[in-house]
């Protein structure tokens, strides 16, 4: 078996995954494309394992691990997608633009819970677990507001 064949297939598969990640709007399709890329990596791992005749079978074991991690990733990713969907009624990634500046974009909705703060005018709520120093009273108010969410 020439190693080049599976490697080329893997490279092409990876590129297709890249295209999917970059071009798809639906978050679930983006997740699928990520799976494609992971599979390309898996193929690479297996091929090199076979080619190098690894005694520890590192490539194949790692492939198994990647599969497991991919499963976990899909689980978490879908949970996030669902949570976004619950709050926004949409999972189009190009409409989730809370990272952008306010005056450029149309004032979209609130920050999704758990995905970081968004609205500059809102002071971070005085939660019970609010950490001591709030660094920036104006602007993002990022640090003070992020802490409680990271605690979850």
């Amino acid at each position, binding site marked *: *078996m020439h190693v080049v*064949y599976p490697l080329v297939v893997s490279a092409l598969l990876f590129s297709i995954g890249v295209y999917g990640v970059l071009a798809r709007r639906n978050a679930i399709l983006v997740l699928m494309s990520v799976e*494609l890329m992971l599979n390309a990596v898996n193929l690479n791992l*297996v091929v090199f394992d076979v080619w190098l005749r690894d005694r520890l079978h590192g490539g194949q074991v790692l492939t198994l691990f990647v599969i497991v991690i991919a499963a976990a990733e899909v689980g978490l990713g879908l949970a996030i997608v669902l949570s976004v969907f619950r709050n926004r009624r949409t999972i189009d990634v190009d409409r989730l633009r809370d990272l952008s500046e306010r005056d450029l974009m149309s004032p979209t909705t609130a920050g999704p*819970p758990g*995905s970081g703060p968004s609205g500059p005018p809102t002071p971070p709520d005085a939660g019970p677990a609010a950490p001591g120093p709030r660094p920036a009273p104006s602007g993002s108010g990022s640090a003070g507001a992020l802490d409680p969410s990271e605690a979850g």
Partner: protein
Amino acid sequence: MTSQVPDLWPPSAQEVVFLLLGVVALGSALLVVTTRQLVHAALWLVVCFGALAGGYLVLTAEFVAWVQVLIYVGAIVVLLLFGIMLTRAPIGRSAGLDSGNRVTAATVAVGTAAVLVTVVVQGFATAYTPLEPGGGAAATLGASIFRSWVLPFEALSVLLLAALIGAIVLSRTDIRPANPAADAGGPAAPTTPPHPPDPAPPPADGSGATAGETGSGRVSRDGG
């Protein structure tokens, strides 16, 4: 090894089989990223993963092939289908699946492919290995995992547990503090004031089985 390397072309029978499977995988992958129907994309993904599993078989990695079929085809794709369903995606043709920067994305993807293929071909044009069955059998791999790779394996199990808990916390709606604006009531909720992230209570209160069914159930099973 270089002395007995056969020519790259014409390919041997195994290579022909692998190439056919590869073509199927690539074609279905292409369809995954280009189809206008969400559910079809998931189904094409099944085809792609299946073809890849076939490729693993050709490469003598049987156990990986079966795991691929089991987890990817059996679990992940189903999970994705659940996601599609739960996000009330339109079944059937929908125009808005591609975002605006499709051209850029295509350019970057083609560039990636060009670079990768060039590097791979230049680096491994003469690499050859005869395929010998048995290298990827379940027994071999099991021995390897539980002998050499047991520590990463255990770490991975902890990771899976964390992912499970995280998925539960993320998807449950009944463990938030009483906040009427938090639950998505409005249709698009554009006027909802940006409320800060809720300080989540201590996770893993153990009762997340029903609400977090999408992520946790599968993952826990897969992890086992």
